[in-house]
């Protein structure tokens, strides 16, 4: 409340709805989505490189199984070839079997490591997903703070304007009163004595002109009677 009174401007209905919606949205997010984000975070963290997670164990198991199945078919073909007259005792055959064993072992390594790298890739995608969610939340927070600042600023400006209006209204009334008193005081004395030059400016000249009948208002009549106009 200002010196001379005056009301304050409250939030608009739209601002009230905005605040209510903003609050409800965040409460809903906390209730429904934040637990999911937390769970995703736990799962993703367990997949970090160097950690013995179930995902990596599963990838290793799958790599072993896939390779074993593929080379089991190879062995079945070799076994079948024996019935068609292939000599299992020949060096060529035995070196072929030994070479297949080396290839199978190496393939297992490649397959397991590939699985590991896929888990790491999933780990990074999970982190990026969480980071994106966090970024949106942070942006929302910043936007909210910006909104709050703007609303506060608008309210402050509006309140200042309301108080200014109230104050200027009061000042006008006071000024009118003072002006009336001043005009009365500066009127020529009944004895025709000189006026006291209080200001030496146009204001006094106007008053003089007005006193001499040059005009009854501060309008055009007064201006026309100013010296040099």
């Amino acid at each position, binding site marked *: 409340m200002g010196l001379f009174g005056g009301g304050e401007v409250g939030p608009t209905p739209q601002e*009230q709805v905005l605040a209510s919606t903003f609050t409800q949205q965040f409460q809903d997010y906390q209730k429904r989505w934040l637990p999911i984000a937390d769970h995703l975070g736990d799962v993703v963290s367990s997949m970090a490189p160097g950690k013995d997670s179930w995902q990596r164990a599963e990838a290793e198991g799958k790599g072993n199984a896939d390779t074993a199945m593929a080379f089991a078919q190879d062995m079945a073909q070799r076994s079948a070839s024996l019935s068609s007259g292939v000599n299992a005792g020949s060096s060529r055959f*035995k070196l072929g079997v030994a070479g297949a064993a*080396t290839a199978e*072992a190496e393939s297992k*390594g490649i397959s397991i490591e590939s699985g590991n790298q896929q888990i*790491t890739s999933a780990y990074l995608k999970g982190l*990026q997903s969480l980071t994106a969610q966090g970024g949106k939340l942070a942006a929302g927070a*910043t936007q909210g703070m910006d909104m709050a600042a703007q*609303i*506060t600023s608008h309210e402050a400006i509006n309140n200042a304007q309301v108080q200014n209006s109230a104050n200027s209204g009061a000042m006008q009334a006071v000024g009118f009163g003072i002006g009336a008193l001043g005009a009365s005081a500066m009127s020529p004395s009944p004895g025709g004595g000189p006026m006291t030059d209080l200001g030496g400016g146009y204001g006094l000249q106007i008053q003089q002109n007005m006193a001499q009948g040059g005009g009854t208002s501060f309008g055009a009549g007064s201006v026309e009677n100013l010296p040099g106009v």
Partner: protein
Amino acid sequence: MGIGSVATQIGAVSQQEWSTYLQHFVPYENQLIQYAMDPNQVTQATSQALATQEQANSQATGIQANNLAQMETSLTPEEKAAVDKQRGLSNSLANVQAQNKAKDVTVANQMGVMGSQATGITGAL
């Protein structure tokens, strides 16, 4: 709703959002940054790949013995020496390839993270 309460309410919710962000998401951002910026990440990945490959390579002898037993045959000492020599070369090559691949994948991952996340929270702001 009183004077200033709208701004206060929005401000309070915004602060809660920010706190939630700091508490629930920043640790994951830090994990991502750690992965992207850690110069030891490549070394760790290549070491892991080498260990995995060596472990797999070590199974070759057992697989070979099983397969030969299925065929009811075995290697002579000369054949075994030839197989061992060939296997040594093959395993070395596999080890090098595993490490190279791990290095390439890790560097690509790091570059990918840096490229996609560089704007990150700064971009949001």
